[in-house]
């Protein structure tokens, strides 16, 4: 078959591909990550590239404007080469650095995305951690074994186990694998009967995981990982001192195969799809762990436990389990309560005998990240009614207290992560995260105070609220005619220019149009309806809720007032809202440090009922009522009614 050389600029990376292979696939081969949210289906229009040289065949797409077409823009996923080509990947199509964010400046990029380690240490999570008794997934104990004599003649392994039991009376059953026993006679004698045993908590039994010579009891480390649909975050934790030694984040490279879980489940059905998805996540987790331990000069052998929290699909893909049946009626996952396994079995590189645990999932569409979130929030411990909202692509909502928990998944869409918006980007450096309109002037504030690149989730919430307050849009989200702001027509919808090309980092106007606003209204409507339906099912009122915990990607920078103004969050006193940042990794860390917490997580997963909104009779009616700003029934938002002076 004919081969063509494709060169990607500005990175100047080349690859040879067969005729018929599209440019998006070619880019993937050179590890250039082009933004796309549909997995190469030609739907999202995000993978725009500019053809500099060469012949090609491209499918027409409404996603490319006439002006762009003239400049040579094509959709990478819909274009195949007919000769060697040179392709320029414009800034807005670049997915951004996938390398690990080691430098301080790069770490800042995620400042708006995730709560810094110190804050988590100081705030609620520390309190949560204290509730649970210290008892990590794996513990190291230093043992000085009595030397055997003719009279004290028990076997080496029996001697070791006996000593452990003497020290830990609570352990009833303890087991040890053959490979450890084989190593034992020599190891014990060479170390002068002074060894360190790593005991792991494995599925309610205790196992001798590892035996090392000498005292290594202070050298025990674990990693807590949040496997998000969009971002993967890892904390390195000293299992002895309980301190977080470092945190690192990276995009989930599975984004290349589709932005939401459903498109990834579909991708997993392709040839080698599951393998590709699995490798993408495993490689990232391994790279994160590797760079975390290098920073504090540890070795892989020092890491004996990893805990992962992710939604059900992410957990399946991590373990390379086919997620196919998650999206087929009656929506059954392969596993909710995943037993503790050896990390090596899943491809996670730590100590070869180290353990891997996953936070239990509730069902196909509410996973371990939410269990971790509930655990980190502590809502399952208090008498008061609490609400937990994860503002992510899946938009999970949990209602309950120490007696009961109820959850639903609202499929809010990628809006809060900047997806599906014309100028939307993830919460990265240069993303507009807050906006205010004063004296007819639009003022944007970006992450890192840099020239703006686009708008992230919290920015979009702010913008809609400000536009509504200043009566620039009506309550259905339509832009009203006015002469003060830069309003123009764009492909049949009106749009407002927020930042002009000359002031932006991408040399293009940053705008918001009526379709963007409509997308956000659908997302916020879904979350609010989820809350409403849960309350209705529980027979409770909004005013019964005492605490609202908000987790997820835009948590730290989200303006609560704006979120209430647009009807995303219920109209309750602002002091009732608590930001928790990334609760998935916080909950995973808690479980890593305490088997009691892991048991609590299992209790949460067992206790939580899942409400399928698609079977709820009132959902559609409530949802269409929520597709208004802030809501069709303004009486539900008395404080907003006052601000807007509307009916």
């Amino acid at each position, binding site marked *: 078959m004919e081969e063509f050389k494709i060169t990607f600029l500005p990175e100047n990376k080349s690859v040879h591909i067969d005729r018929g292979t599209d440019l998006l696939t070619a880019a993937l081969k050179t590890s250039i990550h082009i933004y796309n949210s549909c997995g190469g289906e030609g739907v999202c229009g995000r993978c725009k590239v500019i053809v500099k040289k060469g012949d090609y065949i491209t499918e027409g797409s409404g996603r490319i404007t006439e002006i762009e077409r003239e400049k040579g823009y094509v959709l990478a996923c819909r274009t195949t080469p007919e000769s060697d080509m040179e392709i320029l990947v414009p800034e807005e199509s670049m997915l951004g650095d996938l390398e690990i964010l080691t430098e301080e400046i790069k770490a800042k990029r995620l400042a708006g995305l995730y709560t810094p380690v110190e804050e988590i240490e100081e705030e609620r999570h520390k309190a949560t951690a204290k509730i649970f008794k210290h008892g990590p997934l794996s513990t190291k104990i230093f043992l000085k074994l009595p030397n055997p004599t003719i009279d004290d003649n028990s076997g080496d392994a029996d001697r070791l186990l006996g000593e452990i039991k003497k020290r830990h009376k609570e352990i009833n059953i303890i087991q040890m694998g053959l490979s450890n026993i084989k190593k034992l006679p020599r190891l014990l004698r060479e170390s002068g009967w002074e060894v360190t045993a790593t005991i792991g908590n494995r599925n309610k039994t205790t196992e001798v995981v590892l035996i090392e010579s000498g005292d290594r009891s202070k050298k025990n480390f674990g990693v807590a990982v949040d496997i998000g649909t969009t971002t993967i975050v890892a904390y390195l934790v000293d299992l002895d001192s309980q301190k977080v030694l470092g945190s690192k984040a990276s995009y989930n490279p599975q984004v290349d195969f589709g932005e939401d879980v459903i498109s990834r489940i579909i991708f997993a059905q392709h040839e080698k799809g599951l393998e590709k998805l699995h490798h993408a996540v495993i490689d990232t987790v391994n790279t994160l762990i590797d760079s975390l331990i290098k920073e504090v000069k540890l070795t892989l052998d020092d890491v004996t436990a990893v805990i992962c929290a992710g939604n059900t699909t992410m957990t399946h893909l991590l373990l390379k389990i086919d997620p196919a049946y998650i999206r087929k009626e009656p929506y059954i996952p392969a596993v909710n309560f995943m037993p503790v396994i050896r990390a090596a079995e899943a491809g996670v590189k730590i100590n070869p005998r180290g353990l891997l645990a996953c936070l239990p999932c509730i069902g196909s569409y509410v996973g371990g990240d939410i269990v971790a979130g509930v655990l980190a929030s502590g809502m399952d411990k208090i008498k008061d009614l609490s609400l937990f909202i994860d503002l992510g692509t899946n938009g999970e909502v949990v209602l309950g207290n120490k007696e009961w928990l109820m959850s639903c998944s609202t499929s809010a869409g990628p809006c809060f992560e900047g997806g599906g918006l014309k100028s939307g980007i993830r919460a990265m450096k240069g993303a507009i995260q807050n906006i205010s309109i004063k004296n007819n002037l639009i003022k944007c504030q970006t992450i890192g105070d840099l020239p703006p690149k686009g708008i992230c989730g919290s920015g979009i919430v702010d913008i809609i609220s400000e536009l509504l307050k200043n009566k620039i849009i009506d309550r259905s989200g339509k832009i009203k005619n006015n002469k003060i702001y830069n309003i123009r027509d764009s492909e049949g919808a009106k749009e407002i220019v927020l930042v002009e090309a000359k002031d932006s980092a991408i040399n293009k106007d940053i705008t918001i149009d009526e379709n963007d606003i409509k997308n956000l209204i659908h997302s916020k409507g879904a979350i609010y309806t989820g809350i409403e339906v849960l309350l209705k099912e529980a027979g409770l009122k909004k005013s019964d809720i005492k605490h609202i915990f908000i987790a997820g990607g835009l948590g730290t920078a989200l303006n609560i007032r704006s979120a209430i103004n647009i009807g995303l969050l219920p109209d309750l006193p602002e002091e009732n809202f608590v930001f928790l940042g990334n609760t998935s990794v916080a909950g995973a860390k808690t479980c890593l440090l305490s088997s009691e917490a892991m048991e609590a997580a299992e209790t949460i997963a067992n206790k939580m009922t899942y409400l399928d909104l698609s079977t709820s009779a009132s959902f559609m*009616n409530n949802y269409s009522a929520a597709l208004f700003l802030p809501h069709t029934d303004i009486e539900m938002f008395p404080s907003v009614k006052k601000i807007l002076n509307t*009916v």
Partner: protein
Amino acid sequence: MERLIEKWQDKISEVTIGAKKPIKIGGETGIYFIDGEDKCPNPPRVAMEVWDMDPEAWPEALRSSFGKALNDPVEWAKLCADKFSADLICLRLASTHPDTKNTSREEAGKVVENILKVISVPLIVIGSSAPEKDNDVMAYCANVAKGENCLFGIATQNNYKTLAAACLSSGHSIISEAPIDINIAKQLNILICDMQFQADRIVIHHATGALGYGLEYTYSIMERTRLAGLSGDKMLSMPMINFVGQEAWRTKEAKTGQKDTGVLWETATATAYLNSGADIIVMNHPKAVEEIKKTVHRLKA
């Protein structure tokens, strides 16, 4: 056993239409025709439809009642008001549609003006369902009819601003229409009221379905609207209108059936809507109009 009589906390707003002989619609504090609950100060009214061009597609069974008047909207309106005792006239400016005659707004304005001269009953004016042209024509006609306190239509979620502004400045009431969706109906009323439009100048239309062609859907949405209005939802407590004639005479049965089928279809559809809470029923056939007026009378007694 003593009958439980529902007590409602709120009432439906009262809309006044017309200048010479104004009529009031709405104002209910209960459900129509339910004995003991039907506190309805203003009985439902029947409007008759008049076109500004010959409605060629109308079946002969319907056309024959009007004869030559079909070619002259002024004569037609007079006939309906004087001979057939229509409570209101509903003028449909069908000729302004770009696909029919594309007549100008000035010509349409002239028709409105001339009809207003010869009738004393209130006038409803609706466009040709071509959104852009309607905006132009209706704004002009609203100004022509300034002071006549007409009912103008039809405002939709995607096209309400121009019409609402025109009605506001010329002192007319407005028909707000939603596609059988109670939430959108309410949202549209909010949007119109946010333009400083008075709530008691709005009449709701929930898209009319003829008997066998979706009547039940509209019926239950209208019931829900009325119950919400009576329960205190100000943005749903408006009187309601149905365009029964156009829907009934579009059915296959009316077009191809026996001579009386159309009349019966229109009568049956209109009777159902009366029970669902309609305040104005726009009708076509004089015989059906007569029957419905009798029904209103009987039901009231």
